[in-house]
């Protein structure tokens, strides 16, 4: 149960490599320009099966998207804190 925080845009190689690091039952949280991954309809297929994907709502909406544009669930800052509570490790 590890929380992996991806903050850089999909254009940045390190973001794609961080996605690959997740193991089943981990959660990947997309924040800042990392939220741009959330418009990718195939995002689920780019991570290991069983990995949970969520994006930070504030960062997604501020970039002009609406909630319907996201292929994964959105969480707010409270949700980020809950993810910190639920996962016992962080990779960021």
């Amino acid at each position: 149960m590890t929380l992996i925080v991806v903050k850089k845009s999909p254009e940045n190689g390190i973001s794609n490599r961080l996605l690959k690091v997740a193991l089943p039952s981990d959660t990947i949280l997309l924040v800042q320009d990392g939220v741009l991954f959330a418009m990718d309809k195939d995002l689920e297929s780019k991570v290991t099966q069983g990995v949970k994907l969520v994006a930070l709502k504030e960062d997604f909406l501020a970039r002009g998207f609406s909630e319907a544009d996201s292929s994964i669930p959105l969480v707010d800052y409270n949700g980020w804190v809950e993810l910190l509570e639920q996962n016992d490790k962080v990779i960021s």
Partner: protein
Amino acid sequence: MKSVLFVAYQSPAGSIWINETFRSAFGMYGEELEPVVLFMGEAVLAVRANCKPEQLGCLPLSITFKYIARYKTKVVAVNEDLERFAIAEDGIEPSWNVTRISESELPDFMHAFDKVVFF
């Protein structure tokens, strides 16, 4: 009169560069210079009416609008980038008064300016 192109290529809400690009462009009117601003890559996200960095507590993009109107600063965005982010015509904030350009036109377009500065 000389022409100068300022190119913004970074995502709008995550960094200050689009604001700095316009601040630079508006400063050019003090000389015999005609500035144009080009949105390329993730910078095209800025044109959406709903793109509001101020929701994160950051500097709004809308502070540029009155100067764009006053100086009639030309703002250009790359078509392929708009499509990549599914930005439809009716989702674009009218205050930008965006002109579209296709990727294939970029080389000739850029070479037509006396100076080209990326931000």
